[in-house]
């Protein structure tokens, strides 16, 4: 052992000491009546006297006077009444406790199973919630309710305890107080009637309360507590690097199979590991040569592995060609010292045929000890849930019979021409066909029926099972064996192919989801894609919940599906606790929505909910796996989209800021410049001392007037831009003549055009277009004005109108300096001005306004370079609206 403090241990220690989570104290007893509740209440009173805020969340006094007396003086929180089959069952009100938020809450009967319809099936899960909220909890527990003690207790006392809690909670408890009472005294108390015994269970209880039982249970509780103390001592020594008395650390490994008996193996290994204070592993091997196809078995193995994890094992599913090889390879890699396997329950002859796993393990284990545990068949047979059974309708069997009948009829017609032995081939073919198309059962039926039919109809003497020639027995046996082997081989191949197809379907569903998601660029699209895919694959309603201002809200869902309040509550719970909830989970299983938290490396970001269209249809384990995979994909996509959204917003914000700065700069410059000229001209004229001659006076006045007009245009543009951006422009669409619009625009520009040649070309028979005539005119004015501004004085401007079936194009072509190619798209941006020539003034708003106006009417505008120099601005308007 490394004398240095183990960092992992330190971390664990720290986590256990973490102040944010509440502390759990368990009053551990070995039977009812030892005084756990009493001790807990007494301790609570003591704490209260120390000034701690103590409330009672749930205490069962069983009407015992001394216990009830202790309840007085403590605040009792109201219970939750759960309606169940017309009776009200009082349950711990977890929400109330968390809302009240005392320092310490008393919750009796830790292992209690909640009434159906509660949030959690077990009370200890409620307690977890309370602890998570940072509230300390006192609770009571009997040792037989511990998961790992479950079967031992059943063996010793003959009573199977159904209410169990995982051993982990005991390990996680900050403090344990063993409430001990010698069995004799307890029996006395029972006789005196001081122990609460439910009337209906009186006899069973009396059987349970035998001295032998009680002594055994008492020992168990004391040992369990001692083990824990031992653990704590070891932990303490380990974190402080004190060399311990312990030997080389043991590591245990348990082999989990699909057998229902594996559970017991797991429990045994847990106890063994406790005693040895050893780390332990649970390993399940998937054979690549013979994959497990029965969904019930897959489910059971997964469940056992889950149990192992709950009991503290490190679990691992391996893939390999043989179980011993895979297990030993893993064991050696992880320095396992002991392997626990179950004693085979298969008949001996099968062991001899296929080789015993245990024997192989023992032969090849080397240093590793092999513990073989006797697996007692469980009393209760594990029932395969209805929906998990392979689907085998009866018609397949009928078809199989038909097949045999057909072959027999054909055989009947040709058996005169063929040796009967050759007819066997026909039966073999039918068996193979049945195996391929109808499945294993029908194929077996075909095999049997083939032999019988062959004998009855085609082997002389006919129509009797008697056989004249004994050599036919060889044929029968041959036919039977071959068809059995062929059919089972074929059926297995078929099943494997089916399973492969299923996996393939899931993989390809995942793949298409992934592919489609890459094309989505915002959250809404991502949500839509996820929902469509999942609802398609599972045939269910799907909803995505995302937090908004700290509260979970439904973001998107399949059409016609809106989660009700209960389903919202499940989703919220799932989000807050980062755990699956709803049907098929431990939390609120009565609600039919199954919620899976969407989790990424940055924490949970939402919840994915799936809701069966018909009640009572659950996901199969396979589907559940696929569903989880989908959820993972969805989580990543949602995160990516929301990150992208955030980036976009940041970018937008930046752009807006830049724009505002540009706007202020531009406006202050553009507004001031004309004012400077106007003020300058007018003040010069006012100054009598200047002695300005008439000619200069006129020139000054012209300047002032021109600048005032420029200022007016600028203000007009700014107003238009503001209106466009605020969507305050109200379109007045009317049938408009394009020629008229061009004429009106040129009319408005008359002064600015001067003698500049403008050539308008318009085809005959141009239809009217629905436009806001005045606004469109404004757009044209801006474009033509720009062409005038940026081209030499005497060059011609062409306005060409052309039409196609769908639209009308207006091209305004100048012979100006042109626009740098990179800027072609940007000329329509606000405040963008082509950097040359210096003399041209403007705000860079004109084209932006034109674009805004034209796009508002469903048109398009773009700029291009003109052949031979200059610019072409093309406005395209749709003919039909």
């Amino acid at each position: 052992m490394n004398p240095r403090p183990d960092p992992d241990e330190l971390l664990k220690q720290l986590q256990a000491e973490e102040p944010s989570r509440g502390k759990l104290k368990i009053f551990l007893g070995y039977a009812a009546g030892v005084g756990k509740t009493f001790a807990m209440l007494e301790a609570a009173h003591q704490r209260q006297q120390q000034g701690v805020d103590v409330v009672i969340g749930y205490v069962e006094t069983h009407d015992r006077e001394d216990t009830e007396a202790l309840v007085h003086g403590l605040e009792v929180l109201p219970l939750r009444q759960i309606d169940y089959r017309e009776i009200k069952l009082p349950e711990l009100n977890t929400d109330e406790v968390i809302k009240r938020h005392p320092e310490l809450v008393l919750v009796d009967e830790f292992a209690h199973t909640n009434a159906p319809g509660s949030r959690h099936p077990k009370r200890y899960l409620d307690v977890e919630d309370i602890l998570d909220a940072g509230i300390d909890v006192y609770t009571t527990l009997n040792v037989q309710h511990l998961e790992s003690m479950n079967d031992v207790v059943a063996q010793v006392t003959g009573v199977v305890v159904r209410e169990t809690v995982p051993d982990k909670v005991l390990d996680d408890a900050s403090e344990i107080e063993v409430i001990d009472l010698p069995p004799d005294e307890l029996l006395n108390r029972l006789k005196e009637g001081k122990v609460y015994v439910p009337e209906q269970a009186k006899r069973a209880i009396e059987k349970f309360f035998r001295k032998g039982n009680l002594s055994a249970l008492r020992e168990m509780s004391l040992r369990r507590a001692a083990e824990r103390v031992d653990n704590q001592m070891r932990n303490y020594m380990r974190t402080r690097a004190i060399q311990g008395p312990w030997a080389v650390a043991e590591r245990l490994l348990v082999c989990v199979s699909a057998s229902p008996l594996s559970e017991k193996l797991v429990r045994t290994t847990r106890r063994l590991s406790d005693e040895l204070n050893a780390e332990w592993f649970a390993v399940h091997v998937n054979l690549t040569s013979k994959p497990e196809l029965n969904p019930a078995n897959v489910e059971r193995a997964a469940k056992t592995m889950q149990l192992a994890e709950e009991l503290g094992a490190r679990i691992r599913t391996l893939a390999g060609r043989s179980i011993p090889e895979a297990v030993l390879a893993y064991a050696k890699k992880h320095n396992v010292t002991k392997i626990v396997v179950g004693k085979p329950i298969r008949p001996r002859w099968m062991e001899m045929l296929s080789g015993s796993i245990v024997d192989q393990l023992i032969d090849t284990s080397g240093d590793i000890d092999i513990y073989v545990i006797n697996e007692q068949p469980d009393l209760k047979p594990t029932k395969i849930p209805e929906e998990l059974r392979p689907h085998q309708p009866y018609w397949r069997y009928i078809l199989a019979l038909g097949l045999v009948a057909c072959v027999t009829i054909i055989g009947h017609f040709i058996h005169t021409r063929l040796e009967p032995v050759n007819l066997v081939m026909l039966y073999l073919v039918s068996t193979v066909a049945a195996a391929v198309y109808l499945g294993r059962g029908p194929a077996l039926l075909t095999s049997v029926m083939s032999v019988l039919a062959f004998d009855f109809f085609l082997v002389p003497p006919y129509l009797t099972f008697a056989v004249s020639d004994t050599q036919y027995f060889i044929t029968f046996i041959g036919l039977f064996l071959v068809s059995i082997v062929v059919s089972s081989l074929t059926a297995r191949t078929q099943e494997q192919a089916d399973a492969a197809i299923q996996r393939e379907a899931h993989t390809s569903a995942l793949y298409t989801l992934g592919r489609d998601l890459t094309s989505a660029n915002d959250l809404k699209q991502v949500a839509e894609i996820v929902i469509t895919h999942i609802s398609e694959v599972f045939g269910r309603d799907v909803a995505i919940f995302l937090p908004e201002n700290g509260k979970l809200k439904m973001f998107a869902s399949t059409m016609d599906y809106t989660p009700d309040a209960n389903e919202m509550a499940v989703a919220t719970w799932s989000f807050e606790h980062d755990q699956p909830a709803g049907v098929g989970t431990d939390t609120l299983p009565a609600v039919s929505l199954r919620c899976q938290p969407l989790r990424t490396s940055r924490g949970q970001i939402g919840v994915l909910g799936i809701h069966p269209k018909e009640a009572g249809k659950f996901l199969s384990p396979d589907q559940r796996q696929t569903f989880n995979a989908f959820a993972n994909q969805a989580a990543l996509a949602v995160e990516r989209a929301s990150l992208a959204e955030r980036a976009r917003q940041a970018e937008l914000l930046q752009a807006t800021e830049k724009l505002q700065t540009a706007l202020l700069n531009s406006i202050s410059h553009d507004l001031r410049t004309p004012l400077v000229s106007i003020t300058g001209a007018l003040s010069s004229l006012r100054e009598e001392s200047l002695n300005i001659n008439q000619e200069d006076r006129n020139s000054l006045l012209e300047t002032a007037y021109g600048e005032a007009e420029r200022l007016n245009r600028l203000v007009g543009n700014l107003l238009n831009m503001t209106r466009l951006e605020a969507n305050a422009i109200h379109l007045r669409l009317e049938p408009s003549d394009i020629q008229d619009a061009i004429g009106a625009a040129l009319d408005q520009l008359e002064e600015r055009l001067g003698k500049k040649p403008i050539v308008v070309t318009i085809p005959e028979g141009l239809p009217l277009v629905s436009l806001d005539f005045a606004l469109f005119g404004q757009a044209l004015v801006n474009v033509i004005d720009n062409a005038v501004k940026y081209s030499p004085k005497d060059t011609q401007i062409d306005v060409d109108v052309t039409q196609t079936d769908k639209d009308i194009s207006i091209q305004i072509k100048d012979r100006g300096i042109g626009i740098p190619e990179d800027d072609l798209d940007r000329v329509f941006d606000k405040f963008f001005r082509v950097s040359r020539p210096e003399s041209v003034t403007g705000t860079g708003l004109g084209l932006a306004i034109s674009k805004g106006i034209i796009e508002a009417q469903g048109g398009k505008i773009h700029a291009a370079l003109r052949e031979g120099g200059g610019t072409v601005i093309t406005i395209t308007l749709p003919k039909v609206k």
Partner: protein
Amino acid sequence: MTVLGLKVLVVDDEIAIQRFLRVALNGQGFIVSEAITGQAALQSITINRPDLVILDLGLPDMDGIEVTRRMREWSKVPIIILSVREQEDDKIAALDAGADDYLTKPFGMGELLARIRTVMRRQSNGNSEPVFSVGVLVVDLANRLVKIKEEEVQLTPTEYDILRSLVNNAGKVLTNHQLLKLVWGEGYDDLHILRVNVSNLRHKLEPDPSRPTYIHTEPGVGYRLKM
């Protein structure tokens, strides 16, 4: 045309605008009176009987369009609207209410004086002139004859009606609505047919229909015949 001694009422609440209008109009020989509110303007009309009203739409007490409407209830005095409102809806509303012309602020004094002259000329001529001519276009209302450069132009009855309406209101903007009412009668509101007919009319009269010289379009408002 002489305006000497003609009375003009300027209704505007901006003192600066009042001041330069007074200077300019006095310089032209008008006798200028002023009103700052709509109520004062209506009173002034009854008392002073001006020959012309220059009216701002944004008055402190009531909207200029409402003032126009009330004046039109009993007076035919020419009204020229001056306004910063450049939306077509406002122009149409003012013209439909009975205003003779509409000028958007800011405006050049030359432009205003030209509009005043047009309005006053129409006022003094009335609608009685039987032959109208501008440039090479001659419209003989008495004989229903239209000539360009002495050559007769064949117009459809609708085209002629449009032209006649424009001639009767030469220099004044006729809103689309007014024109439709004059030509097709009340309740007819098909802009489409008006546009097509105006377009046809232009092709017959104008040397270059893309840059009309006689029939001008007031974008979004209506048409005006040059005079």
